[in-house]
């Protein structure tokens, strides 16, 4: 089988497991996400377990995988190298947080919920893509 085909299959498997994980954990429900963010209300700890489980698993996983010289179907591991903290990172993350708090959707659950598409979700997906184009149009300084 061609490497390109295998890479595509690997990408599909990664997405499938990710989508399953979001669905099993309840993250495809904005009410559960907002319940976690609502620390002054009836707090729902589920998201803490999701993020904790994912980070611990992947922390161990990365340590095992990154010992290898290269990925199975790629030339090199493509890891971010930047270390600096800039306004783009912090300001962007703050804007994202406001949008996340308004809707209960971050990008993963929003796209993973397409099978249950509603008008409001479609509206959000469209402007999310518009936002991505806008962010590309704003040049990074320095």
């Amino acid at each position: 089988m061609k490497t390109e085909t295998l890479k595509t299959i690997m990408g599909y498997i990664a997405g499938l497991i990710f989508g399953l994980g979001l669905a099993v954990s309840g993250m495809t429900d904005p009410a559960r996400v907002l319940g976690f963010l609502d620390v002054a209300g009836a707090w729902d700890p589920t998201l803490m377990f999701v993020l904790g489980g994912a980070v611990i698993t992947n922390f161990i996983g990365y340590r095992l995988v990154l010992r290898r010289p290269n990925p199975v179907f790629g030339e090199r591991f493509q890891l971010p190298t930047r270390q600096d903290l800039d306004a783009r990172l912090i300001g962007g993350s703050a804007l994202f947080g406001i949008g996340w708090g308004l809707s209960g959707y971050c990008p993963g659950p929003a796209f993973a919920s397409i099978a249950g598409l509603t008008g409001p979700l479609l509206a959000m997906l469209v402007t999310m893509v518009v936002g991505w184009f806008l962010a590309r149009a704003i040049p990074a300084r320095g």
Partner: protein
Amino acid sequence: MDWSSSLQGLAGGILIGLSATWLMATLGRIAGISGIIGTLITARPEGDSAWRLAFLLGLVSGPVLLLLAGSGLGDSTFSLGNVAGAPGEVIGEPAGGVPLMLVAGLLVGLGTGLGSGCTSGHGVCGLSRLSVRSMVATLTFLVAAIITVFVVRHVIGGGA
């Protein structure tokens, strides 16, 4: 405390972590949703789009698979899916109407674009790498989201 939802959260989190490890092991890529899908749509990089599109299809089919498995098993012994209002269901309802979601989407797209990542890229993958940028980003969007929910639910008090 609702332990069953916490356990399901942990199980789902482990799956998400395995997915991130899998993508690094096979393709050498960070499993950041805003990066994978955002780059696919806005840049369509040649020779680098097929796996992104496949990832997106997989992401969408994950919950569908769980829906099918759930309907096969019935809702008797254990429930697949963890929707707050209806345990055992898989996909929840949006929290607001079209106008609110238009604004939220723009903020999420622009914010994750400028900030180079979202809950998965910075949260899951960045924290696993002990990246300082990702720790700052994750703390920032968590605090911003918590303040937003506080203002919407308790200051304005609409009970979103």
